């Protein structure tokens, strides 16, 4: 095992100061369900681990005027069980319950889930996040890309954003709060994800010494929200496409919509095109299909993942119909 320092600060400020200002030197350790696997496989090789689990402030679910505040150390199991989440944000609770396995949900934290690294098999096999061979050949483009991106995939990034709970959080209008040496900031969750252009970039708008402290979900008053995943296996499987939809209805027609896709692009993928297609329409099979087509109109499949375009379309359509049929 490569030797590394291990520190356990008790405040976010301390933690931020223990983190390096360049990527690669230090890593934040939360539940470890992702980080430890990456370290064992030698994909990341930090010199120092900053364990944040001793920071009590980061735990638990609170609610105030800004909405529901979920501390970044709250585990997925705790979120799934939380009465407030289940009552007010059932689609989010459902997405969390469907993620990973009970064992992983017991360890995995919300902050870690937001910041987890892509499951791209080239990345996980140590060939890089933007993998190339010595001759500069792009491995994903040339190779087996059946699970890779169909949108936002001009390159060099072609992995898909892994979290299955983030699309529905974005649909609920969630924000993420960060704290670093320079203080605190808040971002709409969709702005937290970026497409890396070079090997030095990450897939999050996070400074190397910033910590995710909270996710805030505004009150979902009047929004009907649904989450739909397409997985080949019945459980414990990475989805092939995810869609989350929030609808605000005006009588029988859609007044406003949020449509967010997952597992189709290097970031969670909000679709203004689908939202526009739904606006003013009744929420039915026909409008759902049109919105789904609009969401995927710009899809550019790689050599082996054209089927994902169809799956993403179906996910969007079914999420819209599910949202239209269900409660908030």
């Amino acid at each position, binding site marked *: 095992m490569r030797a590394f320092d291990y520190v356990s600060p008790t405040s976010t400020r301390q933690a931020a100061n223990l983190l390096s200002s360049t990527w690669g030197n230090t890593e934040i350790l939360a539940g470890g369900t992702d980080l430890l696997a990456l370290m064992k496989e030698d994909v990341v090789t930090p010199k120092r681990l900053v364990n944040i689990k001793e920071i009590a402030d980061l735990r638990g679910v609170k609610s105030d005027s800004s909405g529901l505040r979920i501390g970044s150390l709250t585990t997925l199991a705790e979120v799934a069980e939380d009465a407030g989440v289940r009552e007010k944000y059932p689609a989010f609770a459902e997405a969390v319950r469907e993620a990973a396995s009970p064992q992983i949900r017991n360890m995995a934290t919300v902050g870690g889930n937001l910041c987890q690294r892509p499951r791209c098999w080239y990345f996980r096999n140590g060939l890089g996040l933007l993998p190339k061979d010595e001759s500069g050949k792009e*491995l994903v483009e040339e190779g087996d890309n059946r*699970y890779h991106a169909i949108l936002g995939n001009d390159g060099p990034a072609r992995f898909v954003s892994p979290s299955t709970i983030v699309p529905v959080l974005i649909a609920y209008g969630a924000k993420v709060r960060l704290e670093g040496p320079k203080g605190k900031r808040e971002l709409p969750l969709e702005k937290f994800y970026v497409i890396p252009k070079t090997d030095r970039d990450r897939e999050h708008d996070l400074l190397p010494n910033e910590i995710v402290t909270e996710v805030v979900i505004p009150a979902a008053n009047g929004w009907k929200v649904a989450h739909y995943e397409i997985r080949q*296996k019945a459980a414990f499987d990475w989805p*092939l496409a995810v869609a989350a939809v929030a609808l605000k209805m005006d009588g029988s027609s859609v007044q406003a919509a949020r449509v967010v896709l997952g597992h189709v692009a290097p970031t969670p993928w909000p679709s203004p095109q689908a939202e526009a297609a739904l606006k003013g329409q009744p929420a039915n099979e026909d409008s759902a299909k049109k919105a789904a087509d609009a969401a995927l109109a710009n899809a550019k499949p790689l050599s082996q993942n054209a089927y994902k375009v*169809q799956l993403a379309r179906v996910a969007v359509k079914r999420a819209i119909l599910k949202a239209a049929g269900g409660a908030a």
Partner: protein
Amino acid sequence: MPDYQWPDPAHRTLIGKRTPRVDSPEKVSGQARYTYDVKRPGMLYGKMVRSPYAHCKIVSIDTSAAEKMPGVKAIEIVQKPGATIPWAGDEVVGVAAIDEATAEDAARAIQVKYQKLPHLVSDAEPPAGAAENQGPLSLDDLGDMLQNQVPERQIVALIQEYGISFKPTEEDIKEAKDEGVPDSVIEAARNATVHPEAANKTKSNYIKAATQSQGDVDKAFAEADAASEGFYGAPVIVHCCMEAHGSTSEWTDPDHLFVHMSTQNVSGIAGQMAEPLKLPAANIRVHQDHVGGGFGSKFSPDRWGIVTAQLSKKADGKPVRMMLERDSELEVAGARPSAYARVKVGAKKDGTLVAWQSHSWGTGGPGGGGMPPIPYCFSIPNQHKEHTAIRNNIGPARAWRAPNHPQACVLTMSALDDLAAKLNMDPYEFFLKNLELTRLSKIYRDEFPIAAEMMGWKEKWHPRGQNISGNIARGVGLSLHTWGGRGHASDCDLSIHPDGSVDIKMGTQDIGTGTRTCIAVVAADALGLQATDIKLYIGDTLYPPSGGSGGSTTPGGVSSSTRRAVVDARDALFAKVAPALNVQPDDLEARDGSVRVKSDPSRSLSWKEACSKIGATPITSHGHNDQAAAKNKPDLTNSGVGGVQMAEVAVDTETGIVKVTKMVAVQDCGLVIDPKMAESSVLGALVMGISYSLFEEKIMDPTTGRMLNADMEFYRLAGLNDIPELKVHMMTGPGYDERGVIGLGEPPVISSGAAISNAVANAIGVRVGVIPLTPAKVLAALNQTQKAGA
């Protein structure tokens, strides 16, 4: 003459009854010890430096930095500079250190320089005209064909036609004999023309592995009323044993080695380690209590097993453990060869099969591999077959549960099912119509109606694509299969002690198939005891040898040797007890925990009282089952089983996701020792069958030549929620019992792929030719029909 014959139903106390596994308590309470659990005092941890390239030459190896690291105890170079590496993940250098982390650091500190060579990891259809004739066969070619169960006749024919590229030494021949290579093959190699110059020739990746014809295919197709053409296949999959391959070796003194190994072949390991270690096999002890899966991939000590012994030697005999990491387990520890075929098959209007033509190809790694036995089960009178073997750098092939049969079954039964659809026939009627072309028509004829009844076939079957409601299409499919399963050589030592306890010693292994229970039931049945009354000692070379658990040979072997031993011991006991009951030994029987007079059961001694007549030393007996049927008098085992499976599926036509909603298996295996265990063997096979039909595939990267899904996230295995209602029926009674005991491990996994694929075709109205039936492939097939329809 002792009466070794299997007892008739009236005289069976346990055989044929539902006995729970004798090792269940140990397993469910977590006490069962696997090789992975073995922790020896002072044990060192081994790690392997593995090649990152799929095809390369080792240029140099520098171990100096690793040698200097504290805690590093031994380093063993496995392949020297100059060696050619044929696949990514191949073993290069082994290290042993005081803990796993140090061993890993040491492995990382070893500098190996490689010269990359061009690689091929694809098994796509060979370009037209690319296949070269098979040249003279190398030793590796032969080994590969034997491993892939290429029929003996076919191998002999190839040797006679092409000669060989090496001169077999007496040692090669001895080794071949020891490994059970058929005499005809050895004889052919001995008499073959040797072309030593061929050994150095670079070989094409594509070899014409077989061209076979019988009858007059062109005429038969011309006269056929219907013909169907299709493309079918099954990719390379891996064994993915839950307990990875591995072992712990220690030198108990400079001349003796003690090995704990995860293996299907306890009695066969020492012999394979002796040569490379230059140590008499008799000085090697091998032990294993439980194994977490092998499926055909754990017969050899493997290079990494030999390395543990070499490292231990360098580390003053300290135990050295090396269990494969999950990625290596999937990359190098076993793969099932792929098989693809373009098939044309023709029949008469009434369904009678008349002609088969196939162009097939597949890979088993660098060895290429042989043609699977197609057409499977049905000897269609007119045939023409060509097979191209692809030699590539995906890693080595190993026997996978029923080697070559599941692939042959997919290729054949899919093609026949498509032909039935073309004839507008219910495949049930179509297969029945052609059963006379199989060797086990009587068995299949018994099994078909039972399977149909259990599935509700008559109610569920409909012409293709005619049960679609909304986006869910439902369908049913069927398939049939066969397997050998004759018992292997097995030796059994049995003792009845004066205190009434009974023990059995046998160097076999229980690979989760219930071998312990099988032995205990056979022994207890003859002694009128319960299975749990028998104390079993297995899994060690200290006990009499018993064959490796492959080819479904174990139940026939161990039950036969146990039966002989127990009958002899029981008769010896009767001889001691008879005077006390004032009868002749022949007048006695052992029933319900007593020894009693057959004609007057009230005259009896309890089992304990009876055994007290033994005297001071236990009764001992030895039972032997011979590999050669003719040497067993009487022969208690047999070969040739038949099975039929039916699957029902629901397919989401928008997503292409296939759910198996029900599976039915009807299986014969001769005399069933324990129906409960037999059923669970079949249930396990169905689970594995669903898994390879829907999910499994070894995915290789064309650029780097590495396996991309050497993990358990993207090497998908079926989970609990993917498994539907499973129904099993074992054939028993007249016509079955008197055949003797036949193995069961392999046959029930053969048909699942074809049955599920046929069910999907029935549901969606179009064939998805290649398994696994992933959403991508199902959608592609559906889009094809939509385009064709538009």
